[in-house]
């Protein structure tokens, strides 16, 4: 049995072990025994996929060739882990809250669920990762070749890469796409790579221990050997030391496979808290024996031996085949775990951001009626895994597995690091916009391709040689390795500097000058203020969403049981009886987030959008919502005002109604009064005229007396009718004023004389004539009519034993007040607001003999004269106040 066959058998056995571990982990997860699967230790170990075959073998080679520079690619990630509070803690919380499935999903989701960005990041990731996968295939092939050379048979070695690729594809398909979990966690795969992490660490430590204590004879001896070796002199290139440290730190965050295990597979903060200190220690142990192995290897192995394989050839040269086998398994583990996780991460991206959107586009509007989407997603994942591995294999086969591959590690690092500015900007800076992200990624990607990726394929592969010396078209500034005339720079550092600089500048500048869409702004807030609380843009308007359609679609993606459980939970939350919830925005949002866990945010958005109807949430939609609520608020405010007005009007109407009722009662009373008033003179006129007609021989004196009675009564009637007529004229506004100039005292004199002419001096009038020396320009006749009326009223109604009327005149700035105050008991409170109405008479006392029209006429006149008359009853007796305006020219004395 030759070595190769033994190797194949052992490898198969090891792979079978991995299968078994993954299988049992999946089974345990299905039974809900996930506690130990989520142990922080498992999480920490799974991070070890950072150490790939390239680092397992290549670190020693790098140390042998260029000293301790290899340390930088471990120091950078160590710093990132130690600084977990800054970035990782935020990233994993966002990842959990938003159900992020990949780097591309993070970027797409953050920048307004833009699928274009998802596609861009996916392409970047595929281009950056494919050579890396090729590198892993190469490392396995090389290590197999080492054993093949022992047998000197070499048979089948060239096909090793192919079969390794096929085996990895099978494993990844089986365990990477077993379920379409909404959390996108792969317990089986994680357990398997945790086991592989242990194997590779154990292998490297075993070789290291063997070299230090077995070959060199102790720690001090190894240190002496180092100082005696060609690398004894301490010299590091400061630029490369710093640059590579930062580059590896950036790549650690952005590599799709690292993002997968760091963020997507993360379950709780506890895991991160352990990994923060334990993973740097793991990296330290992984790199601890690299220099000793390199130094001892250079000592012991013949000149020209490939230092990349010292880890393997050193034990072999000492006849330790068992140790070499362990080392082989370690290298195999490093390579396979990287490829498996990278394939899962890439296939998720490719499937969610490229295949599914295209598929949905082709079957537009059919997401709810056509075949099983769940199967389509799984199939597209599986095909993507196959495609990714095939690409890796083709790259390996076409590049011929030469030395060029060894340098590809940093090239890939630089490529994926282009995501860093957009990622950090996305989680820390609210102002980062989609256009900015797109610009940054494009600048970075193009610069990377131009300055590093294409030159790395070998001079003259795609660019003519002359470009490197004189630039394209002879433009020296555009030389791929001396951009903008910056020469004498390490080509790698040159590319890192320019790609990240242009990337960041483009990202910042375009972000500053563009305006994000509403959805972007919502997502920006969610991502920059995450506190572990679940979020998600409120994005669906309640519309014509058909819950049944949503149900069918969700079943296809989540599986029937999970979907039904989700819908039932939702219906219970909404308090409904049956298991069909109404498609409220909250429900749609939650459903979208669940689906996003399986197919990515943008695809989920598109799928729900197809069914709900609003494919995207446009500014108009949001404006409409805002408008609607604003309108409703305005409407309700208006209603409130109206109802207040109505209440006020109703109160006024009630008051008016009461007044009307009172007036009507008074009018009725007055009508009987006025009939009586009219009837009394009529009766006496009729009686006396009958006497005059029927009685002959009346004495002349009697006849005269009777006739004058008839005359008086007729006058009284006429006066009554005159008053009524006067009032109606005044009220209708047809009266014409006879304006004249006169003194107030004269008007009052005339009024007093006229009013008191009939019954002598029973009423005493008190005046202060000094105050009355005011010139008026008004209708003096009408004004005196008002005064006469007021004085006559006082004469008639004042019930004091010695009636007295005071006429007080007061001038204020632009008006004068003329008060008529008597010493009687005044007008009863309940009658005060009707005394100015027609036919209102305060007492039923007949002695006054008026018709109740006087005050109504007075008010009409004063109003016509531009003033006002009111009752001011607080002066002890009845008090009327006439207010008249004074114009400047009238106030002259």
């Amino acid at each position: 049995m030759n070595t190769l066959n033994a190797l194949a058998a052992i490898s198969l056995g090891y792979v079978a072990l991995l299968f078994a571990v993954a299988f049992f982990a999946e089974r345990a997860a299905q039974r809900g025994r996930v506690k130990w699967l989520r142990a922080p230790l498992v999480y920490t170990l799974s991070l070890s996929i950072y150490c790939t075959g390239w680092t397992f073998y290549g670190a020693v080679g790098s140390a042998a060739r260029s000293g301790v520079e290899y340390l930088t690619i471990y120091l950078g990630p160590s710093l990132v882990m130690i600084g977990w509070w800054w970035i990782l803690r935020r990233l994993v919380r966002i990842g959990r809250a938003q159900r992020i499935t990949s780097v591309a999903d993070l970027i797409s989701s953050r920048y307004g669920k833009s699928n274009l960005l998802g596609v861009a990041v996916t392409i970047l990731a595929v281009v950056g990762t494919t050579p890396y996968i090729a590198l892993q295939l190469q490392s396995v092939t090389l290590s197999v070749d080492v054993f093949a050379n022992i047998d000197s048979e070499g048979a089948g070695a060239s096909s090793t890469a192919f079969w390794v690729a096929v085996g990895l594809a099978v494993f990844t398909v089986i365990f990477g796409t077993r379920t379409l979990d909404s959390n996108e966690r792969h317990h089986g795969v994680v357990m398997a790579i945790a086991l592989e992490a242990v194997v590779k660490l154990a292998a490297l430590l075993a070789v290291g221990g063997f070299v230090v204590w077995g070959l060199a004879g102790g720690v001090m001896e190894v240190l002496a050997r180092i100082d005696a070796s060609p690398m004894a002199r301490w010299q590091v290139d400061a630029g490369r030391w710093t640059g590579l440290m930062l580059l590896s730190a950036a790549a650690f965050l952005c590599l799709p496979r690292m993002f997968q295990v760091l963020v997507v597979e993360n379950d709780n903060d506890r895991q991160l808290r352990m990994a923060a200190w334990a993973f740097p220690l793991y990296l330290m142990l992984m790199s601890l024996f690299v220099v000793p192995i390199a130094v001892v290897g250079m000592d012991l192995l013949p000149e020209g031996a490939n230092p990349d394989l010292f880890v393997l050839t050193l034990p072999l040269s000492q006849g330790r085949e068992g140790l070499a086998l362990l080392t082989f398994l370690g290298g195999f583990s490093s390579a396979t775990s990287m490829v498996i996780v990278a394939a899962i991460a890439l296939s998720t991206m490719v499937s969610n951001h490229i295949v599914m959107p295209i598929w949905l586009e082709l079957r537009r509007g059919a997401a709810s009626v056509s075949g099983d989407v769940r199967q389509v997603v799984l199939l597209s994942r599986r095909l993507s895994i196959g495609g990714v591995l095939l690409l890796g294999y083709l790259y390996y086969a076409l590049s011929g597995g030469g030395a060029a591959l060894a340098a590809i590690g940093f090239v890939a690092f630089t490529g994926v690091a282009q995501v860093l500015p957009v990622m950090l900007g996305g989680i820390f800076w609210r102002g980062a916009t989609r256009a900015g992200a797109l610009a940054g990624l494009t600048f970075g990607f193009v610069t990377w391709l131009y300055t590093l990726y294409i030159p790395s394929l070998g001079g003259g592969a795609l660019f003519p040689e002359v470009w490197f010396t004189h630039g394209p078209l002879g433009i020296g500034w555009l030389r791929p390795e001396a951009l903008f005339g910056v020469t004498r720079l390490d080509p790698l550092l040159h590319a890192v500097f320019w790609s990240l600089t242009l990337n960041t500048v483009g990202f910042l500048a375009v972000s500053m000058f563009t305006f994000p869409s509403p959805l972007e702004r919502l997502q920006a807030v969610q991502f920059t203020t995450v506190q572990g609380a679940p979020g998600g843009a409120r994005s669906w308007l309640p519309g014509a969403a058909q819950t049944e359609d949503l149900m069918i679609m969700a079943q296809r993606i989540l599986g029937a049981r999970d979907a039904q459980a989700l819908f039932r939970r939702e219906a219970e939350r909404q308090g409904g009886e049956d298991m069909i919830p109404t498609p409220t925005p909250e429900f749609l949002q939650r459903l979208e987030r669940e689906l996003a866990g399986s197919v990515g945010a943008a695809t989920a958005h598109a799928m729900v959008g197809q069914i709900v109807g609003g494919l995207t949430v446009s500014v108009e939609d949001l404006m409409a919502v805002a408008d609607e609520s604003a309108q409703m608020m305005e409407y309700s405010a208006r209603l409130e005002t109206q109802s207040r007005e109505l209440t006020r009007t109703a109160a006024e109407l009630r008051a008016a109604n009461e007044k009307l009722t009172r007036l009507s009662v008074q009018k009725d009373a007055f009508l009987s009064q006025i009939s009586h008033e009219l009837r009394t003179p009529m009766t006496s006129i009729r009686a006396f005229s009958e006497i005059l007609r029927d009685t002959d021989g009346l004495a002349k004196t009697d006849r005269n007396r009777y006739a004058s009675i008839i005359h008086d009564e007729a006058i009284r009637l006429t006066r009554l009718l005159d008053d009524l007529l006067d009032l109606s004229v005044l009220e209708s506004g047809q009266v014409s004023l006879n304006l004249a100039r006169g003194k107030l005292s004269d008007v009052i004199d005339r009024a007093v004389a006229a009013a008191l002419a009939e019954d002598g001096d029973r009423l005493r009038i008190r005046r202060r004539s000094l105050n009355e020396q005011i010139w008026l320009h008004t209708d003096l006749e009408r004004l005196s009519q008002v005064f006469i009326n007021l004085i006559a009223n006082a004469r008639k109604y004042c019930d004091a034993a010695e009636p007295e009327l005071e006429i007080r005149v007061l001038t204020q700035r632009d008006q004068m007040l003329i008060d008529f105050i008597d010493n009687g008991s005044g007008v009863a409170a309940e009658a005060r607001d009707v005394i100015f109405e027609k036919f209102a008479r305060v007492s039923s006392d007949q002695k006054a003999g008026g018709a109740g029209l006087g005050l109504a006429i007075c008010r009409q006149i004063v109003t016509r004269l531009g003033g006002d008359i009111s009752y001011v009853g607080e002066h002890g007796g009845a008090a009327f106040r006439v207010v008249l305006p004074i114009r400047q020219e009238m106030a002259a004395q």
Partner: protein
Amino acid sequence: MTAPGQDTEAALAGRPSRRARPVPLLPEEQDRQGFRRRRLVDAACAMPFFGMLLWWLPLLWRGTDAGGEGITTAQALIYIFAVWLALPLATGLLIRAIRRASAPDRPEVRP
């Protein structure tokens, strides 16, 4: 003194409390605890920068010239790995201290 006892909360949260505290915390004690916790978080935030500084130090060293004084690669490696051991351990201790200083039921918030 109605401040809730930390142990009661720890017990309710299903977590064993490491140090039995017979007396409930006074408000000012809680305040001091919160302050201490925030300073620990500050320290944790400073760790990566501290580490960066320590790992950039080797750039300043002058290597041994032929027969001259200077740092050898072995010495540099010892330094780098010593930092590499101390830094994660310090971080681990800080994380433990932060967990102890935070109330069991309170979610960690940014300072």
